[in-house]
């Protein structure tokens, strides 16, 4: 099984697949059945989601730009001095695609053309399907505090509906993903500290940095001099106590101590293979560490993981034309690098990377930057992605056009919830589990955007 790519198998072995209880067409949420060779192999396989969260509201409309003259003109007229001209666009699918990629993100073009990068168009936070008229008349439930960073970032990461939520959809998914292996930690890893996506009532991600698992200094219990100190430290941490804060601190210390040792050992052998991250690219360094952990998944005994990394600086209220190309370049180079490492590890089909962001940016400018928008274009990348295509509906980028609500915010046509559901189904949640993780999914007819081959 392992020598086949999943996609080839699905294309050639349809009889076997039907016999194995999987559906190629029809209800995309048909649950996996366990118990025969095919699904046994699936059960043994590894899958991971890597979320690249773009902080501040990434201007997807400038990253994935219309190439058609009418659409490009509409965009140029809306954005004025911030327009992305033809000389800054690289065409996709040999020019056949109505969308081109910003030239600073050239590294993404081969991935798109070879079918491993997909674009998801005009997606944003929605509670239920919403038309412009419904928005303007407040006729449907809308996400609270649209256009506020903290609220939209939180909502993107939680997707629990309108009220105040206490748990992220990643954290909820981990409850189910943990059943794939014997560990109750390291399923959820963050290289950006605590975040709403991976935090739930009892759950936090394991937090680490791009340099690896941090180790304690001066507390090696196998070293004669340090041993009494290390043991005293451990015993102090283990003392019974009552105050909720010192208890929580002690619990965190205990977790840090045990996991750090294990992770450090598991990552030890890998260094040479991962010495090649592009220079001066913080995102690439973080993805490099994600790759190292994936390389150690068998040692760590992990079958399902979710990773969270971030890249900041996208809130381009000013200096947009100067800053944004640099951001796009960093993002594209890092993503391209990461996919190469997944290829090297033979994990291309098992790891899906996706972008998310607070919101897109407004069609209108404030002179040298843009304000908070709503609908955005995002990307999914990996061997399991049915790439080289645009999913969803391209909106009008005319500020006076049909999709613009008010100061150039584009009303999304796809919801973050549908996006999340697609990712969760791929990583192995069943239909009822997905509905539990994403309570507003029932408001939408399309539960899977089909950009991933399950």
């Amino acid at each position, binding site marked *: 099984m392992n020598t086949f790519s999943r996609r080839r198998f699905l294309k050639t072995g349809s009889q076997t697949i039907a016999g194995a209880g999987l559906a190629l067409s029809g209800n995309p949420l048909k649950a996996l059945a366990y118990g025969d060779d095919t699904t046994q192999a699936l059960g043994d396989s590894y899958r991971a989601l890597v979320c690249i969260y773009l902080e501040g509201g990434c201007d997807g409309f400038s990253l994935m730009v219309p190439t058609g003259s009418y659409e490009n003109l509409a965009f140029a007229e809306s954005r004025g001095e911030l327009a992305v001209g033809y000389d800054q666009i690289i065409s996709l699918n040999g020019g056949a695609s109505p969308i081109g990629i910003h030239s600073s993100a050239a590294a993404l073009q081969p991935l798109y053309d070879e079918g491993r990068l997909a674009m998801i168009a005009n997606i944003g936070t929605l509670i239920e399907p919403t038309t412009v008229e419904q928005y303007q008349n407040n006729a449907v439930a809308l996400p609270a505090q649209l256009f506020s960073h903290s609220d939209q970032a939180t909502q993107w990461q939680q997707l629990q509906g309108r009220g105040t939520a206490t748990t992220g959809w990643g954290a909820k998914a981990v409850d189910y993903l943990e059943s794939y292996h014997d560990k109750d930690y390291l399923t959820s890893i*963050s290289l950006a500290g605590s975040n709403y996506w991976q*935090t*739930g009532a009892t759950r936090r991600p394991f937090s*680490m940095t791009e340099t690896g698992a941090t180790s304690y200094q001066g507390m090696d219990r196998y070293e004669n001099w340090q041993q009494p100190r290390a043991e005293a430290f451990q015993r102090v941490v283990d003392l019974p106590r009552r105050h909720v804060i010192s208890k929580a601190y002690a619990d965190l210390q205990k977790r*840090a101590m045990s*996991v750090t040792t294990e992770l450090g050992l598991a990552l030890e052998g890998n260094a040479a293979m991962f010495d090649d991250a592009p220079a001066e690219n913080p995102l690439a360094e973080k993805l490099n560490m994600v790759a190292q952990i994936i390389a150690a998944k068998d040692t760590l005994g992990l079958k399902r993981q979710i990773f969270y990394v971030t890249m900041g600086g996208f809130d381009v209220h000013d200096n947009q034309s100067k800053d944004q190309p640099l951001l796009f370049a960093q993002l594209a180079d890092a993503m391209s690098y990461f996919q190469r490492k997944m290829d090297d590890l033979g994990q291309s089909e098992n790891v899906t990377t996706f972008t998310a962001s607070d919101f897109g940016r407004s069609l209108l400018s*404030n002179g040298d930057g843009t304000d908070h928008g709503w609908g955005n274009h995002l990307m999914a990348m990996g061997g399991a992605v049915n790439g080289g295509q645009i999913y969803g509906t391209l909106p009008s980028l005319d500020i006076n056009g049909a999709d613009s609500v008010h100061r150039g915010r584009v009303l999304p046509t796809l919801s973050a919830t549908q996006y999340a559901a697609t990712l969760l189904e791929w990583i192995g949640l069943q239909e009822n589990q997905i509905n539990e993780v994403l309570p507003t999914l029932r408001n939408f007819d399309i539960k899977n955007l089909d950009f991933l081959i399950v």
Partner: protein
Amino acid sequence: MNLFRSVLIMTSIWLTVGCAPGDSTSDLSNQEPAFAPALPTTEVAHAAPDNPLLQKDAFRLLEQATFGPVLKDIVALGVSGPEFWINKQMQTPATFLSDGLAAASSQPWNEYINVWWRHAITAEDQLRQRVAFALSQILVVSADDGLGDEQMGLTNYYDILLRHSFGNFRDLLHDVTLSPIMGEYLSLKGNQKSDPEKNIQPDENYAREVLQLFSIGQVILNDDASPVLDQDGVPLPAYNQTTIENFARVFTGWHFANAEHFVWPENKDYISAMQPWEQYHDQGPKTLLNNVEVAAGLGAQDELNIALDNIFNHPNVGPFISKQLIQRLVTSNPTKEYVRDVAQVFNKNHAGERGSLASTIKAILMHREARFGHIDSPDTFGKLKEPLIRMTQIWRAFEPLSIPSAFNYSWVESEMGQAPLNSPSVFNFFRPTFSQPGEIRDRGLVSPEFQIMDETSIIKITNRLLASTIWSHNFKHDSEGKRIAIDITKEMELEPDRKALLDHLDLLLLGGEMSPELRREINQLMDSRDYPLAASQRVVEAIFLIASSPEAALQR
């Protein structure tokens, strides 16, 4: 004692220098710091009696009001009581960051962080320093995202907070709004009125954040900071998108004081208050909070004053700011009564002034909950100490003889996730609503500081505590010139008497709350270091074991 106190109060009232709310001056650098009037203890409802404090209670107050308790203050509070100490603190001349920066022997681009360390550790005006630090986490600017090269400007911004720590919130709001550093951080600087032909609309960044984070918050609040709910149990919004747009239009036409033209000026003054350019200011009528109408045709400064008054007078400001200050200084989960009592002082102090930060801070510290909350709620009162304060506390407790001129810990954020004026966003290092999963969350409590406490930072803090104690003390002969060597002279004198030493460390680091179990572990560890000339080793092992313990991480 009483006669002394009455004389002191009378003298202090006589020395009162008032600063009327609404004074606006465009030259920030010439303002003198206002000396706070000494205010009667009973200004806040449910005040604790102003008696000399037991050592453990003195320790508690000092953890709330300074960057770390020192012995001489613990002793002083046992003589005079909290009110005297607070008054004295409020009347101590301010130590400004820019003065420290000017005096620094060298000034690499982020030397201001090292100056901050020096002041936090050694400045006499500890309460003011602590309050300014708290304000810097509410009225946030950050070197992240573009201002990293502007240390003079950042330093001056911090000085604005210091200057107004015991002044009036309205003045603070004004000076923060016109700070060019804030102007750049939240894109108020260079913001221009709309130009429909070019599809330009005024940027909403500052308008949104000044309401959401700096003054009233997103929902209507009761005076105890709980949200007002509609009949479906949903909080009522305090403003909407239209309000933001109106304020965005108010905040137009401002730029660097010495800008030679408005669009992309070459001259950049990150220190002086911004100046108005009327031709870029939106002159249309506006509707502000609570449907207050502003007529057309007003100049930028006049309109700014009206807008800031409008914000300042919103009933939310008292509870919104009071609760956060309580959370920064005293406890993460104050009772509604505590918030309400303090907010009432903010709303109107004894002199009838709205927005007196001096009165508010004093109310926070004199309220019975600050003094007795640990008795009322022994398992939940208090807060997790921030990483920066874990370190200042050690460096203050073992008062270093001097801080080396080459001292450099400007890179603290990469270790501990926190550095002054360096938060990752305008939402500070942590949000007031963050709740650590597990028991804290199950019990409906918040723990903001836990948002940056994770497996990485907890190890790094532990490592830094070890390096700063076991590897860096004045009885070690090979300490580097760049580190602070803690002074353990007094501890070495006590060392032969183990019990006396541990009692002393107990008071100095844990306020006398050391458990027998912890004491036993310390004794055992010290016993294991029993070779000749190991006295200093024993002392610092004890200090580290205490300082790194979960009990030392808790302020209570």
